[in-house]
């Protein structure tokens, strides 16, 4: 990976961290509200299905994770195992795509029409 890409990765991780900070707070507040209100799974799904706003929010959340986590893992793997180079970059990409795929699967599961 060239130097320019390394710098852009750093920038992407910082921006995704800012997005995640907001998303985690909103997510936790939502969970606390749902638990304290005694909402059942069916009641939660009833509120989320078809909701464009919640779909957009959790899509943003998933993509922020898919950007942020692989870049951090790339650094951790590199520093822990002294592993650098193209294969590490490919692994980083695979981790990012996997997180995006699994995350969006969950998002469609909760917000899609067939979720219930």
């Amino acid at each position, binding site marked *: 990976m060239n*130097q*320019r890409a*390394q*710098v852009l990765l*750093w*920038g992407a991780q910082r921006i995704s961290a800012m997005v995640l900070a907001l998303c985690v707070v909103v997510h936790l507040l939502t969970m606390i509200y749902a638990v304290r209100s005694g909402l059942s799974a069916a009641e939660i799904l009833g509120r989320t299905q078809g909701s464009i706003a919640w779909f957009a929010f959790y899509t943003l959340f998933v993509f922020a994770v898919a950007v942020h986590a692989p870049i951090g893992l790339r650094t951790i793997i*590199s*520093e*822990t195992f002294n592993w650098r180079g193209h294969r590490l970059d490919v692994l980083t990409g695979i981790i990012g795509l996997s997180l995006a795929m699994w995350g969006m699967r969950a998002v469609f599961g909760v917000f899609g029409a067939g979720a219930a």
Partner: protein
Amino acid sequence: MDMLTVRIWRGTEQGDFQDFEVPRQESQTVLDVVTYVQRKCDSTLSYRFACRVGVCGSCAMTVNGVSRWTCRTHVSKVAADNKLEIAPLRNLPVIKDLVTDMREFFDKWARARGRFSGSATRKDGFAKVSPESKERKRVEAGIECIGCGVCYSACDVVSWNKDYLGPAALNRAWTLINDVRDTARAERLAAVAGDAGCHACHTHLACTERCPKGLSPTAGIAGLKRAVLAATLSGEI
């Protein structure tokens, strides 16, 4: 007379600690202790020092597990129970006993383009730099580095990533980036960018915590990160 129990590293990368008994004295520094051992106990002990007053940056060692300049470190501040363990700096090859090979440390200053590049000649007048300017204040905050290597020794990222330029080289680059007379800004930003440069810093602040001159390489590195990203997005580098 009170005695200090002093364990000193002997050997190269391979070696062991050797114990010495050293008389405790008032206002005694760690460098005084090492000098006593070399002159009175074992003349084969190797260590490095020059000015003895905190200017040259030669005498840095690891004292009770912490990187320090030994000439200005009083025994009373670091010797719990009158015990001292003195080892060479971390993250640098050991030549012998307490002497490390500083080449990689200074080579990284060169890699970070730590040399001033100007355009003025001897026929030009002095550059006028306001002491109140933002850039000059940033230079002021980092310029007193004595190149002792304490920050490099204290930095965990250096131990994990041997290519990492390290706090001192990046601090030097930051002072030059803010030197309005310098003409190599883009080349220097490129030199300190990426996985081996400023973006490898985890902001652990060990360098800032340990710098004997009270500098904050971490702050300079943070500035470099932002400057490099801005230069990358604008196409400057």
